[in-house]
């Protein structure tokens, strides 16, 4: 149960693969937009990503695909063919939103103009997702998740804290999984909603450039601000907390962030009000920061015999801003998550039972049951019939590998 009846008849067409575009439309689908996902005949590459149940790969059983394409309909279409492109344009004739992640080169190759699409359907919102945008010197550059995270400015600062202390000279990192691409998708969904709001007053759609670089640079506002306005260059060192941060414990790690005197007092209470903490240098917020390394030495000694859950539960009760570094199992089995219905159990016709997280929001509307992600080409017949194609034509389109 993770879908809410927020849109009534909003038609979204998606030509996008892997994470960013599909996540943007997944978010719209969770608000009950009618999303049609258009894939090439051999499928979105995320169908090969996995994970797969019992590590047995199958084209309809990839966890990443199943997760990102819940609540969508799916059709296959070879946009490199004239017929395939015609069908796409027919599909867009009464669409409200079109999310497309083809590069400028790909658009030119198939002779698809995004501006023309808005001209022929003036209400259409066209959301273009590319690495660097539709204009500017890098508009034809290639970029993957790793590139964008680094070029966007947050990567240069990863890791800070404990990992930086242990490995000061190693290469900068990107966050695990596809975090950057997801964020670009979330940012894109906001841009699309902005254009839908404009349509409320003007009835007109528009082209929206939702490139990933802009999304990523926006995440770096903090240190851009310091440099551009104060001349201070943030580094991995300066970004590390004076004390607290990632603290190893008996069975894992906890994150502790105490910024105020009150929070520090709570932390000291958690530690059993030890003698060392009574020293003058730890009482003042400024000198405490100067002696942060000593605070951490004491923290680490204290934490090494305790479990992550024990530290988290006691610290939280005392008001310490604290969390465990959750592993996948911690999240799936979390009592807090269960109380909030965080993990959704669903039955997928091909992939079987699957447990995945819902999105961060709970609306006070009645939640609807999720529709499973489409098998490859699952809705070809229904969608093509809707466009007026006959049974015979639909078979032919498949035989010619247009669908």
């Amino acid at each position, binding site marked *: 149960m993770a879908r809410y009846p*927020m849109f009534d008849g909003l038609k979204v067409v998606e030509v996008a693969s892997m994470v960013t575009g599909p996540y943007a439309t997944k978010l719209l689908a969770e608000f009950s937009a009618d999303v049609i996902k258009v894939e090439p005949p051999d499928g979105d590459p995320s169908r090969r990503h996995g994970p797969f149940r019992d590590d047995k790969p199958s084209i309809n059983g990839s*966890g990443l695909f199943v*997760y990102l394409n819940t609540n969508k309909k799916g059709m296959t279409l070879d946009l490199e063919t004239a017929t395939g492109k015609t069908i796409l344009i027919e599909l867009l004739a009464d669409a409200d939103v079109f999310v497309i992640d083809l590069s400028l080169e790909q658009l030119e190759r198939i002779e698809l103009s995004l501006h023309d699409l808005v001209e022929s359907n003036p209400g259409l919102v066209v959301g273009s997702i590319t690495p660097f945008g539709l204009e*500017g*010197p*890098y508009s034809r550059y290639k970029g*993957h998740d*790793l*590139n964008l*995270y*680094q070029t966007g*400015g947050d990567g*240069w600062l*990863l*890791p800070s*804290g404990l*990992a930086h202390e242990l490995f000061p000279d190693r*290469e900068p990192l*990107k*966050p*695990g*999984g596809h*975090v950057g691409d997801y964020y670009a998708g979330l*940012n894109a969904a*906001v841009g699309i909603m902005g*254009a839908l*709001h404009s349509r*409320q007053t003007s009835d007109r759609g528009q*082209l*929206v450039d939702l490139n990933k*670089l802009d*999304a990523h*640079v926006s*995440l*770096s*506002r903090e240190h*851009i601000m*310091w440099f*551009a*306005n*104060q001349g201070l*260059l943030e580094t991995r060192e300066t970004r590390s907390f*004076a*004390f607290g941060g990632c603290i*190893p414990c008996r069975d894992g790690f906890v*994150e502790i962030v*105490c*910024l105020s005197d009150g929070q520090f007092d709570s932390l000291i209470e958690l530690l059993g009000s030890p003698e060392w903490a009574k020293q003058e240098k730890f009482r003042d917020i*400024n000198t405490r920061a100067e002696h942060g390394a000593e605070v951490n030495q004491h923290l680490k000694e204290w934490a090494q015999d305790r479990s992550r859950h024990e530290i988290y539960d006691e610290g939280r009760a005392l008001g310490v*801003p*604290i*969390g465990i570094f959750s*592993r*996948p199992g911690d999240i799936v089995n979390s009592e807090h*998550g269960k109380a909030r219905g*965080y993990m959704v159990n669903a039955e997928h016709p091909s992939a079987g039972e699957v447990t995945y997280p819902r*999105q*961060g*929001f709970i*609306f006070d509307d009645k939640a609807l049951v999720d529709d499973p992600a489409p098998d490859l080409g699952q809705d070809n017949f229904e969608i093509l019939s809707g466009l007026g194609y006959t049974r015979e034509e639909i078979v032919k389109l498949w035989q010619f590998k247009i669908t």
Partner: protein
Amino acid sequence: MKPLDGIVVCDFTWAGVGAYSTFLLAMLGASVIKIESRTTAQVAGGSGRKSNPVRRRGVTVSLFEELNAGKKSVSLNLKNPRGKELILGLVGQSNLVIENFRPGVMKRLGLSYDELIKVRPGLVMVSMSTSGAFGPESHGAGYAPVFAALSGASWLTGYQEGPPVELRFPVDMVSGTMGTLSALVGLHRQRTTGQGTCVDLANRETFGAFIGDALIDFGWNGREQGRVGNENWRMAPHNCYPANGDNEWVAIAVETDEEWSGLRQALGEPAWMDDPGFGDRYLRWKNRDLLDDRMTEWTRTRDPQEIMRVLQQHGVAATPSYSAMGLVTDHHLNSLAKFRGLTKRDGSSWIYFGPPWTLTETPAGISKPSPELGEHSREILTSRLGLSDSEFQQLVAEQAIY
């Protein structure tokens, strides 16, 4: 015309998450009225009006300046009954109330959704907190690194042989963006049908949804995924390589055979690339450590900009790892005027990165710097609630407007 022209937001947010969520709404054209009070405005944290020595090690600037640009500030004393009346009056004329106090605070202030819809039927309300409004851990306090750790994403971030990596400020932005999205969706329905809604957002869940596939892996295979540095499931080379200069790095990612052959040309067809160990995508992925060593030999003597130029000419995704200095001097971003300036009240200028999307017909943007505490109290309360000047003065004297 901006997308949210005519939309009024009663903004109770503070710190990074909340301030960013309404910063985006302000960029989209909403009238964002920041409700503050002298009784609480000096809160510690990364983005309060006062900077924090623990966090910033002596740096005295605050992110407040940036994340509150384009908003108006009204200072009202919630503990004063007349102050609260004025707040309810403003809510009565708003489309959206948005806040990120600890769960329970709005209710204690008499500002729960149940109370607020009495004065504004059809109201949209968005609440954001570390762990959400209910559940056994909902009382827990947290900043971005805390909810990033709880989300599971930090566990998956780091060197293979190292500890998990705390994730910082960007995670505030992520959670704030989800707040903005929820608000926009709620407002969209309000504009269409008049119906309101209230939304409970848990920041750890917003960020945790970014690792859905790892959680499915646990369910299907019992696998606890760990850290793999910069590795990718289908690309090699795929890493940050050292470039010429101090702390200079370049990110290179090669996916297809075509890109590999572009790389080969760009590197001048060196003999090592003909090694059968790099003969196809699978082999390159398998031998990625060796490949990284070879790539490093080539990159370490070259300038990151030059590497980008040469490899991109050959169709290979190569880009510098940028510090803030790299970003603000970047040729592409500057040619598109992505960095913008605002004039502050003292006449100085404030440089900031503009909207993270380009709406070609109804562009987003802001024109005013962040407000002084209570700067717009008189303007808002007289124009929106019809207070006379003498009533206004009286309420200031009573510290209802405070």
